[in-house]
């Protein structure tokens, strides 16, 4: 088992930097995801590992070997293509056997390996069918078998589930994890779907504009986003800007404008030391906020703000409330659990209290900027005035 080392790799298309100086090390046997919106460079990066794109500069090592100058057919990697790219004129069996046949493997061995692989992906009884006679999920399995039969050191998966419907996608995701466990090789998984990346990956690299924005285990990126982009791209969040007015041992105090010269305060634990008086952003995940129409008794390490329910979206497993707090629209997810005795149904335009633990507010040393927001994947963007404008009002 060898690690993959990507060293300062760049790729341009007519002057547009699709991948811009990426450095990355992927551990042996890891299931690693490149996650980002379309055009972020994740697929280009994958295609450079596969050998379909020539980097502008940089090196890609598998173990000690730099593979950049090798043609695709000499690299110890195999790819699952987005639309599977099964050969339409060959049966399932011939598709899977392809890699061994071109390497002139003896026929008895091919037969053994193909049936072994088809069993692994549960397609043993479909071997004589043609690709246009099997379903999307089955094509996916054949594509996996066709790639894995070559014993690659790395399996590259380019949005492999994009063409499947939701239920099948969830099912194949689990199956992919099982296959990863069974074969034990490194998987590199490209997706724009954050939930896919979160559920399947050991580690994730969040990409934007050809660069890696953040890299780490999914929970780390979700709980501790290093930038507004990753906070926003992974999961949903509320971004609130404010001025740092105090720093204690355990927490910082922020003064957040609500408009009309009114302010509310947020306490937050901190992982870097902001300067007093500086403008800063708090990322607050909607599910971390509790909502109640009665003012709760709260401890010292809790934040509380008052707002008015603007909108209620019933989403089955939970309800999303959009609560107006001054100029902010704060989203709150509330699960349908009746554990509080004073629980009653909340209504539009009702005054409510929002409260959360200090440690659930996460500081990001950036100000929200529309142009830095992810281009796709989110339908609702909270209404922010320009960060500069609000700063100007305040000073």
């Amino acid at each position, binding site marked *: 088992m060898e690690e993959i080392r990507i060293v300062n790799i760049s790729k341009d298309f007519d002057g547009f930097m699709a991948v811009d100086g990426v450095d990355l090390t992927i551990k042996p046997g890891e299931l690693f995801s490149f996650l980002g919106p379309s055009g972020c460079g994740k697929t280009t990066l994958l295609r450079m590992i596969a050998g379909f794109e020539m980097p502008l500069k940089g090196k890609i090592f598998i173990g000690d070997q730099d593979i950049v100058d090798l043609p695709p057919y000499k690299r110890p990697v195999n790819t699952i293509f987005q639309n599977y790219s099964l050969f*339409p004129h060959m049966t399932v069996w011939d598709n899977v056997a392809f890699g061994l046949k071109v390497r002139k493997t003896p026929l008895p061995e091919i037969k053994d390996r193909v049936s072994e692989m088809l069993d692994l992906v549960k397609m043993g009884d479909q071997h004589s069918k043609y690709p246009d006679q099997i379903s999307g999920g089955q094509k996916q399995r054949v594509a996996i078998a066709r790639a894995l039969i070559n014993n690659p050191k790395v399996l590259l998966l380019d949005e492999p589930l994009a063409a499947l419907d939701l239920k099948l996608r969830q099912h194949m995701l689990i199956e992919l994890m099982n296959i990863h466990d069974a074969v034990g090789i490194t998987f590199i998984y490209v997706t724009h779907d954050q939930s896919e990346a979160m559920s399947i990956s050991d580690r994730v690299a969040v990409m934007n504009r050809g660069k890696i924005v953040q890299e780490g285990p999914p929970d780390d990126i979700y709980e501790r986003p290093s930038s507004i982009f990753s906070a926003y791209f992974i999961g949903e969040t509320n971004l609130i800007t404010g001025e740092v007015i105090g720093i204690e041992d355990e927490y910082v105090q922020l003064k957040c404008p609500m408009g009309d010269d009114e302010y509310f305060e947020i306490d937050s634990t901190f992982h870097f030391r902001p300067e007093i008086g500086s403008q800063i952003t708090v990322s607050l995940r909607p599910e971390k906020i509790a909502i109640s129409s009665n003012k709760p008794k709260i401890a010292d390490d809790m934040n509380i703000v008052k707002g008015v329910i603007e909108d209620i979206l019933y989403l089955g497993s939970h309800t999303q409330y959009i609560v107006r707090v001054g100029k902010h629209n704060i989203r709150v997810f509330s699960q349908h659990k009746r554990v509080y005795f004073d629980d009653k149904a909340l209504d539009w335009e009702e005054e409510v209290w929002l409260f959360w633990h200090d440690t659930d507010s996460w500081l990001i040393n950036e100000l929200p900027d529309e142009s830095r927001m992810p281009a796709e994947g989110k339908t609702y963007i909270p209404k922010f005035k320009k960060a500069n404008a609000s700063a100007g009002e305040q000073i």
Partner: protein
Amino acid sequence: MKSNSKSSRLDYLLAAPTLIWLTVFFLVPYFIVLIYGFLTPDIFDVKFEFNLDAYRQLFDGTYFRPFVLSVKLAITTTLLCILIAYPVAYLIARASDKIKNTLLILIIIPFWTNLIIRIFSWRIFLSYNGVLNDILMRIGLISQPLEIMRTDLAVIMVMVYVYLPYMILPLYSVLEKLDFTLLHAAMDLGANEVKSFFKITLPLSLEGIFAGVLLVFIPALGTYLIPQLVGDQRSLYVGQVITYKIKNIPRNWPMASALSFGLLILVAIFLLLGYILLKKSKVRGVA
């Protein structure tokens, strides 16, 4: 169901003009040709007396040579067209949209000029004192003009020139639809460029080759004009023989009819062979 049968009745109605046209001007003449083959020749016309001479001669070897020549010419032309057209069609299919359209127009432009005029320009090009010999002598490749006109080589050159677009266009249309990520997949699985071509591109473009072969081989088999204008008049092709049977006096309509029918049967046999080959190769649709 009712509306269904109504619409199918409408379909027939819409197809009727074409069906009538084909019956009257295609099927009926063929039937006349078939009957003429069994009549007795006269100086200008035919006598309506049953006579098997024409078909006897068709099969007794008298006309073996023109048939062999025609088949050889058709096969050579078709093969050369495939070899030349394939890379051209491939390049056009992979070119950017703008260049693609320009190249396609360039392929089609020759159709705007009458075939006979194009063949005559080839005569000027190939003749003893023609452009080709002039160029070759000027650059010093030859010291004496070559006798290219009125040879089998001239026939093949002009045949390939005339029929090439009929091979390029169907090939282009399959190659254009070909999913080139399949080639990436093949390379990804360890096949180099050559292997990917023979295992993926070629099998998936067989239908285009088959269509091109139909468009080239069949007309090439019955070709008359090109060997007549640039060919060696000592080696006659079936098309020429048929024409002479009608043109030269005493005319022999029954023999011309029998030869035409022989040609038709030959085409049918080759078509069937090609169809069986295509089926056997188990090639499925590209999409």
